[in-house]
């Protein structure tokens, strides 16, 4: 059977519109550039003395080209949305076309996005910084892209048409929209974005890849932040010898070319020697320290409350910590002393190594940022007031300085998730540490690039996915920065 067309039944109507909108956009862009270069300006406010000193903004030709560009973009987007809407209502795959069918598969994601946006915009005035995000168009676009992938990761099971590692050998390198020959009743009858060189569905792998990436990136960034904060606060606040030593170590890690570090940490021989395990032992203890100090400094005047909170933190922390670093299945692991009964969960060795190396690469930068902010904030009056009141140094650091540093930290957190996603992709691209079967975007790009010039579709889908996610995070950070500066 012939593969389905890109645009289905609506194609003949909407395709010319799309082409026209693109053409108009580029023509308008060029004309506008030429006109600006020739010295024409967009219309400016003019006070008209003869008409009761009113104000008018005459439109110059530049304004008309800008308007043309704006409407071209709107028409383009409207066509895509129409394809998606039509795709949801049409039932036959040939009618939907690839675009419509992909849009229809993402239906749960669209619903979730619409609900999120309606609720958020409705209540944006009471939602603090998050609500203010919806005043910035750039921030909203960023938030949309990020939430799109977050919901895709959540609903990956519903959105994907096939399993991430299901192989149908006839579908090797098939073009987007190809139908599966003699497909079973009840299975999805086509590969929407084609098949890769092993005969797996590109679309489903992309969707499942979102889950793989979003499982690691935010968590790794969070750990890096806890480590950076736990070390950066005292380094900036106390200064002195400890500051010099930690800063030197942080600079050491930063001077290491990232890619070399990855190769050194993730190669099988070094994993065999247990280096990542020892590193995880050191790195994962910082979150526990962070929470212990956090609650201890807050409640040390209320001994009962403090005792309860610390006990909770220490018990859960220790349980998670030892479950994390000890591996039931691995008898060579250097950490065999932890009883198996208490080993609640296991992280697959590969994943742990990737996680540790990404955290390790990110934490020195966070440390430097936190240290810099603390150096700035500790000269403020309210810190001096706290010191005069007799507040302990840790209380001042964690409950006075840290909340006031949250703006830049939140912005950097968004940027850093994006950077972590890029790092994960880099690891996958070099085939380091990740399972070769995994749907991870980086490794999918790496697999596809060998036949790139002949079969371009397998690596293109994950490449665009990764790009939109990171772009979304960057735009989100930009919107947050803009809105938090307005205060």
């Amino acid at each position, binding site marked *: 059977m012939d593969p389905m067309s890109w645009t289905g039944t609506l194609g003949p109507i909407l395709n010319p519109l799309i082409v026209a909108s693109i053409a108009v956009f580029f023509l308008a862009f060029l004309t506008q550039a030429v006109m600006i270069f020739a010295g024409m300006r*967009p219309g400016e406010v003019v006070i008209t003395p003869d008409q009761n000193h009113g104000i008018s903004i005459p439109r110059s030709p530049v304004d008309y080209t*800008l308007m043309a560009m704006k409407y071209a973009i709107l028409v383009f987007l409207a066509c895509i949305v129409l394809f998606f809407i039509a795709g949801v209502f049409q039932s036959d795959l040939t009618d939907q076309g690839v675009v419509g069918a992909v849009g229809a598969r993402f239906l749960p994601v669209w619903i979730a996005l619409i609900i999120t946006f309606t609720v958020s915009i409705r209540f944006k005035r009471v939602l603090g910084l998050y609500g203010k995000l919806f005043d910035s168009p*750039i921030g909203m676009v960023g938030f949309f892209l990020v939430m799109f992938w977050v919901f895709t990761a959540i609903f990956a099971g519903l959105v994907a048409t096939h399993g991430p590692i299901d192989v149908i050998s006839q579908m090797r390198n098939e073009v987007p929209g190809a139908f599966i020959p003699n497909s079973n009743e009840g299975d999805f009858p086509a590969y929407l974005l084609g098949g890769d060189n092993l005969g797996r569905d590109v679309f489903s792998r992309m969707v499942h890849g979102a889950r793989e990436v979003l499982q690691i990136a935010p968590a790794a960034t969070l750990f890096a932040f806890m480590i950076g904060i736990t070390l950066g606060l005292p380094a900036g606040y106390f200064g002195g010898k400890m500051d010099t030593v930690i800063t*030197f170590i942080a*600079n*050491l890690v930063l*001077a*290491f*070319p*990232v*890619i*070399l570090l990855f*190769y*050194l*940490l993730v*190669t*099988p*021989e*070094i994993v*065999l*020697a247990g*280096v990542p395990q020892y590193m995880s032992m050191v790195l994962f203890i910082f979150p526990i320290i962070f929470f212990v100090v956090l609650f201890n400094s807050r409640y040390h005047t209320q001994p009962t409350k403090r005792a309860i909170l610390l006990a909770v933190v220490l018990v859960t922390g220790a349980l998670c910590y030892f479950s994390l670093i000890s591996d039931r299945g691995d008898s060579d692991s250097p950490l065999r002393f932890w009883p198996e009964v208490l080993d609640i969960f296991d992280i697959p060795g590969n994943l742990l190594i990737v996680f540790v190396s990404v955290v390790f690469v990110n934490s020195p930068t966070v440390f430097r940022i936190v240290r810099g902010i603390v150096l700035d904030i500790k000269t403020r009056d309210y810190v001096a007031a706290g010191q005069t009141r007799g507040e302990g140094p840790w209380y001042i650091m964690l409950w006075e300085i840290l909340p006031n540093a949250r703006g830049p930290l939140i912005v950097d957190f968004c940027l850093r998730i*994006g950077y972590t996603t*890029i790092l994960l*992709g*880099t690891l996958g*691209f*070099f085939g380091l540490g990740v399972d070769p079967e995994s749907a991870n975007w*980086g490794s999918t*790009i*790496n697999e*596809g*690039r060998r036949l*790139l*010039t*002949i*079969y*371009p579709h397998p*690596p*293109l889908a994950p*490449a*665009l996915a*990764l*790009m939109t996610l*990171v*772009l979304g*995070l*960057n*735009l989100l950070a*930009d919107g947050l920065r803009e809105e938090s500066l307005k205060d």
Partner: protein
Amino acid sequence: MVPLGGQQTGNAMGQFILKRIGTMLLTALCLTFVVFFLTNLFPNLEKLAKTQGNARMTDAEVLRWLDNNGFGDPMLLRYGQWLGVAPGWIIKDEESGEIIGRCIDFGMDPADAPRFCGLLQGDWGYSTVSDDEVTNIVWGRLLLTGKLMGWVLIVMVPSALIIGVLAGMREGSRMDRSLSTASIATTATPEYVSGVIFIVLLASSTAGISPWLAANGWFEGRTLFLGSARSAMDDITFWNFTLPVMTLALYGMGYIARMTRASMAEVMTAQYIRTARLKGVSFRNIVLKHALRNALIAPFTVIMLQIPWLLTGVVIVETLFNYNGFGWTLVQAASNNDIELLMAVSIVAVVVVLTTQMISDIGYVYLNPRIRIS
């Protein structure tokens, strides 16, 4: 960033540079030891023994092979030997009475061999995989990467500065917003993504615009650009080198442009710019004669710091485009357990990073008149 204040004399500047060089040497020493430690862990050596000797060696044989080849000494001592501050190992074979040693080349009389032979003596070791002196390999590869980086900088720096200045001269304008969004987009596109997109768009014979242009007969050949830079190693042409250069330049460009924009926007709000405007100086002259020079101080340090950052990009691009330069060598050495080559590559990488950091610090002090003449 720069610990300078109060009386600024030439002497203080000298001290500052000396202190920076001291820190740099210490950092280099620590980093190389870390790399040495990680590449000389027992599993690596075991693998080396098995690839060099016999794949089916027993554990005892592996240990004997390692002892006979000078890997038996303690780690720190071997690091000293590698560095050239400790005398190279010498082992006398019990059976044949032959003397072999780190500094004794094949066929050399042991009596003539130097006592020290390490990095400081210019002996970088021997690559077990490519069967060649490491120095020969590294310099050739560095030259290739140097060409790539050179072109990248030629493309990247001027365009980034122009974009940044154009965006920053009228903060908040439409031009600013569109250029800023574009630079965000380039920083959000890692090399392995943009490289793939470029190859599909411009260098594929089945997809992108090449087949369309070829059908119209607008250019000779099958594709607009070449998706592999292998031929660029001998002869760089526009056809085979554009895509790698573009891929690398694009990722680095956004960051420099954003820094330039921030710096330019800050300068444009300065008092002296307002004075110039009120005096009636034209906008063009304000930007070109008054603002530009001050606005370019901060981007200078960013450009220098961008070079080590491009290093990862170089590795990706050279792998993606099959260009056998320095980054490609790093990947090969690391994946083939070629210990001495990997050490040499790391040294070069670390030195590049630290030197650019130092130049950026010192350059910032020299370029900024407010710090220089305070």
